[in-house]
């Protein structure tokens, strides 16, 4: 019994690591601390395949959106594995893709500068600690950068699901992370009069006037920018709509889209959504910069990703007016 008790005594830890979010993160942290994740090494055949299937374009940028990396349990639907991310980064590199950040794209658009050819932007929503934990060493190895859309109140709150400001400052200092805005605190579904809960950023609360809504949204976005500037030292230039909802569909007032777009335009140069995944073309300089479209990355291998990028490039009309 005494000997048997040794393995049995591990069961509560297994349960904690598998069944609680905190435990899962702790487990991830331990894994990353012991064995840093690495990009897979591609064989010569893999490299040839990557070069042969590399999408070829210039003037546009493929924008990818990720949420979680390495999450378990309920979150797996919104999360890919570190191995999948590693494979994707390895293939992007082998295919000669150029990774850019939201800030670089905003600058290029504003200054009418050309984007690098075969440009890809990796974006992550929410500022999740676990995603950054896994992605950061992989980005470092791939010499790539990512754009993280941070919910600023979550970054300052207790709990460990979201990266703290202290961690975010470290990530920003590494040069691998461009930290942008994902609202201060409007990333949730709210109860509305008569109907299913709707995204808080894109709907009226029960009894809320459009004026009160405008004020609420403007305050939230302005606060997020102020907070990011205060904590990270750089004012955000880009925004991602929570749930990708910008007031077109999941809303309860027809005026919201206009009001929201105006509020976003006062604070940001670029704003991203991820509607209608059937056809997502590349982002080009002639697009509506407050409704830029992103490719929602699923449980894909590196090859899957390259093929998806080829499709996006094929679905993009020629824009000769772009530099």
């Amino acid at each position, binding site marked *: 019994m*005494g000997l048997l*008790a040794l393995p049995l*005594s591990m069961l509560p*830890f297994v349960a*904690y690591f598998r069944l609680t979010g905190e435990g899962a993160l702790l487990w991830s942290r331990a894994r990353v601390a012991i064995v840093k994740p690495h990009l897979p090494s591609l064989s010569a055949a893999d490299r040839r395949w990557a070069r042969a299937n590399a999408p070829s374009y210039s003037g546009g940028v493929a924008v990818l959106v990720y949420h979680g990396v390495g999450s378990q349990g309920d979150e797996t639907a919104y999360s890919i594995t570190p191995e999948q991310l590693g494979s994707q980064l390895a293939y992007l590199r082998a295919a000669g893709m150029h990774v850019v950040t939201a800030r670089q794209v905003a600058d290029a658009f504003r200054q009418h500068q050309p984007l690098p050819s075969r440009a890809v932007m990796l974006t992550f929503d929410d500022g999740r600690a676990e995603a950054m934990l896994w992605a950061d060493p992989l980005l470092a190895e791939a010499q790539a950068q990512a754009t993280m859309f941070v919910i600023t109140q979550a970054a300052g709150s207790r709990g460990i699901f979201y990266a*703290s400001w202290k961690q975010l400052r470290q990530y920003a200092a590494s040069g691998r992370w461009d930290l942008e805005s994902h609202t201060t605190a409007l990333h949730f579904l709210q109860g509305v009069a008569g109907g299913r809960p709707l995204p808080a950023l894109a709907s009226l609360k029960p009894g809320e006037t459009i004026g009160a809504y405008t004020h609420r949204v403007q305050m939230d976005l302005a606060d997020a920018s102020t907070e990011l500037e205060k904590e990270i030292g750089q004012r955000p230039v880009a925004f991602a709509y929570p749930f990708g909802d910008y007031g077109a569909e999941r809303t309860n007032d027809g005026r919201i889209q206009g009001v929201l777009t105006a509020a976003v335009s006062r604070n940001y140069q670029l704003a991203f959504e991820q509607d209608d995944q059937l056809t997502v073309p590349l982002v080009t300089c002639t697009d509506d910069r407050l409704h830029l479209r992103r490719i929602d990355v699923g449980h894909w291998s590196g090859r899957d990703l390259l093929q998806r990028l080829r499709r996006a490039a094929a679905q993009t009309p020629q824009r000769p007016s772009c530099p």
Partner: protein
Amino acid sequence: MTQRQDVRLAGWDGLTGRVVQVVIVVYAVAILFFVWMTKDMTVASLTHDPLFAAYTMSVLIYILARFVVAMFYTPVFDVGYRPTVSIIIPAFNEEEGIAGTIASCLDVHYPRHLVEVIVVNDGSTDDTWPRILEAGGRRPRFKAVDLGRNYGKRGAMAEGFRRSTGEILVFVDSDSYLDADAVRAIAQPFSDPKVGAVVGHADVANDLESWLTKMQQVRYYSAFRVIKATESLLSGTVTCASGCCSAYRRAAIEPVLNEWEFQRFLGRPATFGDDRALTNRVLKTHRVVYQETARSTTVVPTTMRRFLRQQLRWKKSWLRESLEVWRYFWRKNPGAAVFTYASIVFPFLAPFVVLHAVLGRLLWGSASGLWFYLIGTYAMALLYSLYYGFRRKSGLWHHGMTFVAIYMAFLVFQTYWGIFTMRDNRWGTRDSTVDHAPIDPELLTVLAPEAA
């Protein structure tokens, strides 16, 4: 009796023992690694939940520091010191065990002419007195004292002291048994004149009887080998030389004996906690050290009810004596002072932390704090138990976790329960109510076969 029961019956010997030890070390390192990984979770919650987080961090550091300091403990080896020793056994209604206790004391490996055994019958109403006479027989250097009525343990111990001649007095509870080498071992630290009292190591005699006694065996081990060892190492500041197996220097207790025998608290005679009270008085002027090699076994409660009563009694004497400890301990070794003041403060916060973690989360939603708290407590309980498994190579190790569970569920709340019921000074396990009367010579019978 020399061979520990649990080692004999539940131990891992030879290669198995070694392998298990290695496994335990790896396991413990892995747990500590995960504890390290959580550090910023605790630090982050400092700003939101200061009491909870500060308590968690301090307790963690406190526990780990105790274990680390205890690793450096070594007992005093036999330096050939052989003072005269009086073994004093107070007995009240102990007809079952008294003969065994006396036998273990008469058989100690110590020069015969230097040791005497004095048994004091504290007005037992059963067959204790005849059993004492039977067990002692006409052995030389054996004294049997019958007080004629019940005075309480302190009266019996004090009378034993007055009847004794030894330079060193070994007090043994009537339900404890000394190992043959215990007296020789317990005498060695007294070769340092600064040492006023020495506490030996106690194991549980009935350790394999039930889960409750197994749990107490693991608890006893760390209470002695970790807590007392740490205190001992820090300039001899053991705060309680347990009644089951302690020795005092005659010169150290003579000046405090009377005050101790008739100690009153809140207007009532202080009955239990005689051991802690005596240690506390000696500690003001002398060092009190732990001697691991002086081994004894003691019978522990076998029902939950009796166990909880015993713990409450200990808690009350701890509360009473801590008032005094608080006043003078800052003058002691700084390390010992930090540990001791922390050990006084923590039990007052602990019940709130438990309630905060369990009820708070149930009432206000998010369970994550609760899981973190539970797994953290479990990790500490596991480390605590693994320590026993490692040192003793014993299959009883996991019962340490039962102890921690009972501690969190019941004992944590006894601090305040003890305060509220402080004036109830009944013994709890023995139906003795005593009034601290001075010993009446008219009722006294002293049988000293040697003199007869």
